[in-house]
């Protein structure tokens, strides 16, 4: 027979686990709700089309930061995706011996490096030699952050492609390179693309590595070798300022950034879930 005490403990602890879950999901909805409510209130067309205005004036927007973030992400993609993708192809298709597992270990290590330290790295290799902050340095920092996940996702999805597809292509006389390029990669394309998008969404919100690389800019950035504004950095600067006008702008920027990041996450994760069901 079950003693009453055991019954009560059972019911109590099991319901506590439920409470924990409800609590966490509740926090998620509070965060989203509060941000979207505040952000939507302060968002206007001006936000997307105008430059920031000096302290004291109300209105203005963050057009330069939106374009700046776009430029930084373009650079990050140009650096992170080719290296990550090709490195992943190596691990999945060519890797033999102890070298691949060393690469995997290094990748995980690099992935765990705090973003602020990546910022110091980009500062040391680009900002210091060039003697000024630049879009390029910010893009490099974000690009380096993209590589580990791009590499591991590519490897994972290429490994998911059945061996029989490779054998079929080779039996028809295709070289290994051709097999990979025309059969294996297309078969894993959807998964890899989703992984890359998730990766991009992750670095899109990164602030710390930009603080002393791309710095920030109240005007349009005049070139790739000049400082540029970026949405996450603007949120940081505006939120920590003492001005109400700036706080409102920070909410609007937070809304735009989070909406973009979450939209990419939801779409990419749904595609991934479907891809893994099909496999």
């Amino acid at each position, binding site marked *: 027979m079950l003693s009453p005490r055991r019954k009560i403990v059972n019911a109590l*602890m099991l319901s506590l686990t439920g409470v924990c879950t409800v609590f966490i999901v509740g926090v998620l909805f509070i965060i989203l709700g509060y941000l979207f409510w505040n952000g939507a209130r302060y968002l206007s067309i001006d936000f997307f089309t105008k430059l920031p205005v000096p302290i004291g004036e109300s209105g203005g927007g963050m057009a330069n930061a939106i374009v700046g973030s776009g430029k930084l992400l373009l650079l990050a993609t140009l650096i992170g995706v080719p290296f990550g993708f090709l490195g992943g192809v190596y691990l999945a298709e060519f890797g033999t011996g102890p070298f691949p597992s060393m690469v995997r270990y290094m990748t*995980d*290590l690099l992935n765990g490096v705090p973003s602020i330290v*990546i910022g*110091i*790295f980009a500062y040391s290799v680009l900002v210091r030699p060039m003697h000024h902050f630049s879009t390029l340095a910010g893009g490099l920092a974000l690009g380096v952050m993209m590589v580990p996940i791009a590499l591991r996702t590519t490897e994972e999805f290429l490994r998911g492609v059945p061996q029989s597809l490779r054998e079929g292509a080779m039996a028809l006389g295709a070289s290994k390179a051709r097999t990979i390029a025309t059969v294996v990669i297309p078969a894993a394309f959807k998964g890899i693309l989703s992984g890359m998008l998730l990766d991009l969404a992750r670095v899109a919100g990164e602030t710390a590595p930009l603080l*002393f690389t791309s710095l920030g800019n109240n005007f349009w950035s005049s070139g790739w070798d000049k400082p540029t504004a970026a949405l996450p950095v603007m*949120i940081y600067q505006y939120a920590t300022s003492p001005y109400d006008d700036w706080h409102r702008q920070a909410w609007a920027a937070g809304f735009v950034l989070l909406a973009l990041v979450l939209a990419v*996450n939801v779409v990419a994760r749904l595609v991934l879930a479907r891809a893994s069901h099909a496999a």
Partner: protein
Amino acid sequence: MSSAPITLSRSRSIAARFRAGDEFAYTLTLVCAASIFLVTCLLVYQLWIGANLSRHQFGWDFIFTSTWDPAREIYGAVPFMFGTVVTATVALFISVPIGLGAAIFLSEMALPSISDTLTFLIELLAAVPSVIYGLLGIFLLVPVLEKTVVPLLKSTLGFLPIFSGAFYGVSLFSASIVLSIMIVPFIISVSREVLLAVPVDQREAALSLGATKWETTSQVVVPYAKRGIYGSIFLALARALGETMAVTMVVGNVPKVQASLLAPGDSIASVIANQFTEATSDLYVSALIELGLVLFAITIIINGLARLLILTTGAKVAK
């Protein structure tokens, strides 16, 4: 096998061999994979070189000095190491019980479809950029702490030194709470995975011996997945230690060691973010880079431990 077409095509033109491309593809992808080594080594090298001035000036004293005074050019890492460790530890105290509870619910109690949906939502929490957590920390969390949570804490536990002193909103405590919300998704999603990997017969054996569901979970399932759960906690810890923006926005940025959690403090990542562009002298910059080196070393060790733990569980479950 990959070299077969190459040897056959020896007589063909260079262009033809290039088109067949096996050697080329191998070399290209190998170079990209090896670039990871290059970048990691370069990263360590740059941190080491950048910290030269400070290392020569202070030596090991750097990590034992509790003064940070740019005006007098005295730099010590203690206040920041203290803040980093305290905020991360308190965050773990909050998020481990909640995260583990939720992970148990999602793996043992909830229907698979509900569990998957909730996990999807919780993993979205992990995708929220840290600067957004900072924004919400300043405008949502700090006011709530000031009005309700901290007065309640002070009236009940105020006799403890860690809850003594005045509260100005920004504090180690605020940073810990923000961190705990940020790391809980990692604990939940990794712990849930390792709990789900526990074989069903383990549960059935315990249940058939008359254990209740909770007894089965707490005495059989969780111990079986123990190493993986530790791994998830270490991963979360590494993330908390390296977190910059959310901490810097609510921690107060005061480089002092104080007993009270309600007092403002600072962390390694946070001080680098705050002072790097303002650093005027070479020694100042060098000291900040050395702080980066310290942070790098700490997170590498914690991450390494986490991966080791998760790997060994994975092997055990796979058998």
